[in-house]
């Protein structure tokens, strides 16, 4: 009984967790997709999925923010997979439907930086979002991505390096 009470105290309600981490999840998904409308859709889907699976959340294993980011990652990957299937079908039937131009995301960034970010892969953007923007530590990010902390640090270093290299190109363009 005491263990259950302690667990209940350590575990926030879904409402509180959603309120506290909505911006974090949105930022993460925005960096991955570079499309603010799509990011909002995926964020909403993330919280729907999280609500259904909320009882599986174990506060002893990870924080609510980390857990929500994991759900968001899963939602984003599902979206990328379905997009890839759609593009394959379109190529197969030579019926390229024009996509709507995505709404520019990350409006608060300078154009150079935004353009440089656009040139990175989703994997690099994801890492920058988690480590730099959301300020998750290396072990947490590594666990979320399923890689070692050393690999996480190395990849971040390379992602920032690529970003730095693209910024002068963006300026000169």
């Amino acid at each position, binding site marked *: 009984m005491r263990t259950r009470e302690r667990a209940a105290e350590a575990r926030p309600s*879904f409402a509180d967790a959603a309120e506290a981490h909505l*911006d974090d999840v949105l930022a993460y998904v925005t960096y991955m997709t570079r499309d603010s409308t799509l990011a909002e859709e995926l*964020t909403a889907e993330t919280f729907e999925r999280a609500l259904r699976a909320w009882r599986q959340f174990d506060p002893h294993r990870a924080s609510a923010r980390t857990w929500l980011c994991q759900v968001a990652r899963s939602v984003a990957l599902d979206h990328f997979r379905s997009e890839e299937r759609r593009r394959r079908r379109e190529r197969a039937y030579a019926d390229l439907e024009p996509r709507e131009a995505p709404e520019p995301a990350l409006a608060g960034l300078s154009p150079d930086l935004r353009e440089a970010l656009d040139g990175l*892969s989703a994997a690099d953007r994801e890492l920058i979002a988690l480590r730099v923007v959301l300020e998750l530590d290396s072990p947490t990010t590594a666990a979320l991505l399923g890689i070692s902390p050393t690999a996480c640090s190395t990849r971040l*270093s*390379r992602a*920032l390096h690529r970003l730095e290299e693209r910024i*002068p190109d963006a300026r000169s363009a």
Partner: protein
Amino acid sequence: MPAPLEPLDNDRLEALLDGDVGDNDRERELEGLVRELRAAKPEAGAALRERVRGLRGGSERKPRWSLARLRVRRAALVLAPVCLIGVVIGLAATGAPRGDGGDDESAAIGYDQRRVRGQESEGAGGGAAPSPPAWDSGDSAATSTVPSVAEARKLAPFAPERQAVAGAPAPAPRRAQDYRADLTILVDDVDELSAATQQAMRITRSVGGFVVSANYGKPVGEDGDSMLTVRVPVTRVQEAIARFGELGTIIAQNIAIRDLQGQLNRQAESIASLRKTIARIEKLLEDQSLRAETRARLEFQLNDTRRALSQQTGARAQTLRTARLSHVTLTLTTRDEGVVVPPAPPGEFEQTLRDALRILGTVVAWTLATLIVLSPFIAIVAAAWLLSRAGRRRANAALLERS
């Protein structure tokens, strides 16, 4: 053209992300980059916020069962019935706890450990030598099927010619038995050991038996051993054992008698039945008007039956040979281990505990055997799961690189 930038050292990068101040222009530029990225963190608009708040109204579904949620108490609730099932299986496999069980056909006499000085027993005149335990086998001699006259004549050699000698039970009259005896006799020294060994061989031959094997170990210092395996006619085995006992001091004796009468009777019945069948088939074959295929079938059957008769006859002869001669293993030694007190029979609690441990041992053995048999499959499944997980991760990484 500006020199290409090198990636920052991991530790230095971590320090800068944690708020450390840049040491050079490059680090300070990176700091600026980080500040700009953090400052431009997207925020959820009112519409999205309302949409997510609206989710709170929905009920949180009851959790599906998940192995990850299993706590110790829940694990115990699952394991307890599993253990109970294992115990039931163990009980079924080993049977109910036995008191003092024994096979129907064999009667192994309890290990009889005592000291006998020549023909004297300890406490001469006072304490009597322990009476041999009952060794009546499954088929009672009084109520079993009486063999035919021919069989009785053949069984006559089993009638005991002498009365039972102290400590060695007599073979049952009119019954075929496999009589086995183990004796350990203590002699005084290695000289006597050699003499006693020779005497034992002479005794064997004098009662009509023969030595199967003799093993005389090279004495080490004052100690030595010899082991003889002999076969003596079952009608004179008691006499032989008594005379062996005179060679020194009996410190251990074990007698095992296995009744062979039932087996012999069954073999006789089978032989009689086969002979009748052969006679019937031969009579049928005398008929000259038989069709060729019928004759061939009967001849085939006749050959089969004759073969079976030959086998049964041989088996019965072997049984008779086994029953006619007893096995005696005689160990002569100079090592005085001291008087061994026979262990007291276990009490009820101790017996129950032994049975419980035996069942537990059986359950553990079965569990280990099952795990050993299943382990390759478990390993394959685990490897497949790990590979699929690794494959999924690689696929996700590749997908993110392409997006």
